[in-house]
């Protein structure tokens, strides 16, 4: 692994100039993903609200699901929080708060490993359940299989980056500091000035993880993963019993209804 020399500008020094491929992967692709993700969600919401569901398989099998699903989801929640912290909060901020590099590293790696292993263990159990339980297996679509493949790859690649860093730490070296490369690139996407060089300077493991992750985001709107975007966060704030009046004009944005007496 090439040791990086971080600059205080929060910008990685380019080891090599980014190639054309780098520009496509880290300069163009993220926007394609974003467009597909947002466009896909809008499309799905408009045309397939009926298909927007977890497609729960608990009716078929409960015993394994009750271990696997919470293990996976809770692990994943921690992983997501870790990603948000690592990608969005600039290193200079945490340092300003007095969190030293070593403290941060230790936290991220230990918590990240535990959460990552939970997530992986959870999904392995879920997939095993899916494969071995007849009813669950026959309710599995090709769409599901593709989704699982990409999801597992994303988790594996992510866990690999964490373990590589941890391994480097334990052997006394320093792992690749993604907060100098990937995070910088990630934040730069949102201000529409993708810092391709920063991402290009990252390691292969990170590049792979990011690629698979981006692909996963493209799949979100079109697979059962879409359920994550309807997490019922409003539930605690609404009255228990919901009353609704009969729709006088049911959702008819898509259709023009002719009256019975019209030809």
């Amino acid at each position: 692994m090439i040791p990086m020399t971080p600059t205080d500008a929060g910008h990685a020094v380019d080891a090599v100039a980014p190639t054309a491929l780098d520009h496509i992967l880290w300069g163009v692709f993220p926007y394609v993903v974003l467009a597909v993700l947002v466009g896909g969600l809008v499309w799905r919401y408009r045309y397939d609200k009926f298909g927007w569901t977890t497609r729960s398989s608990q009716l078929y099998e409960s015993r394994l699901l009750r271990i696997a699903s919470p293990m996976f989801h809770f692990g994943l929640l921690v992983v997501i929080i870790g990603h948000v912290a690592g990608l969005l909060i600039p290193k200079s901020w945490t340092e300003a708060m007095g969190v030293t590099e070593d403290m941060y590293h230790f936290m991220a790696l230990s918590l990240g490993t535990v959460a990552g292993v939970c997530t992986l263990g959870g999904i392995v159990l879920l997939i095993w359940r899916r494969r071995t339980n007849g009813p669950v297996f026959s309710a599995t679509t090709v769409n599901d299989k593709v989704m699982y493949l990409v999801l597992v790859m994303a988790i594996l690649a992510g866990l690999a980056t964490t373990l590589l860093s941890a391994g480097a730490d334990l052997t006394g070296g320093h792992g690749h500091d993604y907060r100098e490369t990937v995070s910088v690139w990630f934040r730069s996407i949102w201000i529409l000035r993708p810092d391709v060089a920063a991402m290009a300077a990252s390691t292969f493991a990170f590049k792979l993880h990011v690629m698979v992750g981006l692909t996963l985001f493209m799949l979100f709107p079109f697979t059962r993963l879409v359920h994550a975007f309807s997490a019922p966060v409003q539930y605690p704030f609404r009255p228990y019993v919901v009353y609704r009046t009969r729709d006088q004009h049911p959702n008819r944005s898509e259709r023009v209804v002719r009256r019975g007496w019209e030809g």
Partner: protein
Amino acid sequence: MATPSASGRRIGKVMAQVAMVMNLDKCIGCHTCSVTCKQAWTNRSGMEYVWFNNVETRPGQGYPRRYEDQEKWEGGWVRTPGGKLKLKAGGRLKKLATIFANPKMPAIQDYYEPWTYDYENLIKAPLSDDMPVARPRSLISGEPMNVTWSANWDDDLGGGEELGRQDPIVQKLGEQVRFSFEETFMFYLPRICEHCLNPSCVASCPSGAMYKRAEDGIVLVDQDKCRGWRMCVTGCPYKKVYFNHKTGKAEKCTLCYPRIEVGMPTVCSETCVGRLRYLGVILYDVDRVGEAATVEDEHDLYPAQLDVFLDPNDPEVQEAARRDGIPDRWIDSAKRSPVYALAKKYKVALPLHPEYRTMPMVWYIPPLSPVVDTLTKTGHDGEDAGNLFGAIDALRIPVEYLAELFTAGDTAPVDSVLRKLAAMRSYMRRINLGEERDESLAEAVGMSGTDIEDMYRLLAIAKYDERYVIPTAYGVDDADRGVIEEIGCSLDFEGGPGMGGMGGPVPFGEASGRPDAASVETFHALKTRQTSDGRSDLKGRVNLLNWDGNGKPDGLFPPSDNGAAPDEKEKP
């Protein structure tokens, strides 16, 4: 806002509910209601195991198996020591924390694994010495399976002692309940969704996809908003929300709202062989529901719920109803409501399991038959008031069993209902025999002779129009103006199948011609058919669903060689 009523109490917000009463004495356990309901609503894949209407034999386990064991399933509400209502399966935060795997969800085995038969084998099997058989195959996994349970496996006390002992109420009452033929009793309990006033299914839905309709109280699942969190299945103590395992969405009895909206009874009521179902409007004070559902003593839940119902003949109630936007024809309808009469006026209908605190709105007239049967079995006169009253007192087991079903274990109301039914039997027998009316029989149960005769009329000979008093959602004028059509069919998008095309205009065939407002047509056709004695005339195009098998309506068969094509006159 609130106006005081005749009783001096202030009337809060008035709401209307289409409610049902079933007279259990008349149920012959034929399952016609279940089958017609299934044919109408749930004969789709993913819904094989779903019975919006099921008929269970009691004593018996019910459907799904032992659903009444709330210590296990944790459905409905509980009252906290502080006098608040809480979902038994846990509050909102617990629901969210356990959303990834619902800890209290019945598995398919608690319902039953639906199956079909391998009919193909009957014709495709190679020649052999043995007769080919059609083996059962699971509709869930597709594998061959052994059928070991179904929606009414313990029908007619099948399985006797062994299965009957598993009935949660029998377990509560203990060894006293006997299953030997001479000592047992039995009746049928048809069940649909209760369309509760305080629905715990709605409260359990994290997405807010379930709702109670403000106009008629029907509880529905918005299929576009349901996200498959499957918490409602746990929330309903009657286990009347089902999970469609193909679509991943919850579905439940809709009280046939497309029919109710145009003034027609539900399919289960319409087809009931015993004609034992009644539909009518109840006006109630929604501001009092919470209070009534939280009364401390479970025995008070039944009277408390009765108290929430408002008297539609009270001018102040009428005024308050108008104030809250209830149409006059709904108020008129509420005055004639058979449900109000049976539940509140005669007080012979009781709620199912009020102790779940959901304020159910499908009520039951408990059966007198276990009492009458015992009398006749032992050679006594089952229509003699003295015998009947004595037997009601003596036969504690059926009465206690009924009380566990209908009044949270309080035998007094059940006793009182059975006495009224007994008094009616004896009173009417005297009339049938040409004897003098015996007013004392009526007085003995706190009624008048006229009341008894009115009640008898309602229970025994009420015609279609008296059993089903349902105001339309629109008013008939509106229906004629095609407003119903506006509510429309989901296939009615531009160019869709319901608009005369599969993505484009179709010049011939089934979908050609001017689109008729199908619901208006159906409404009028069924109305004539049900209210006339002769053959019904189906004008215009043939809707096979409406065709009652009589006659040969135009357009049913292709044109004969000499005749003109019936389609001709339909061309626009």
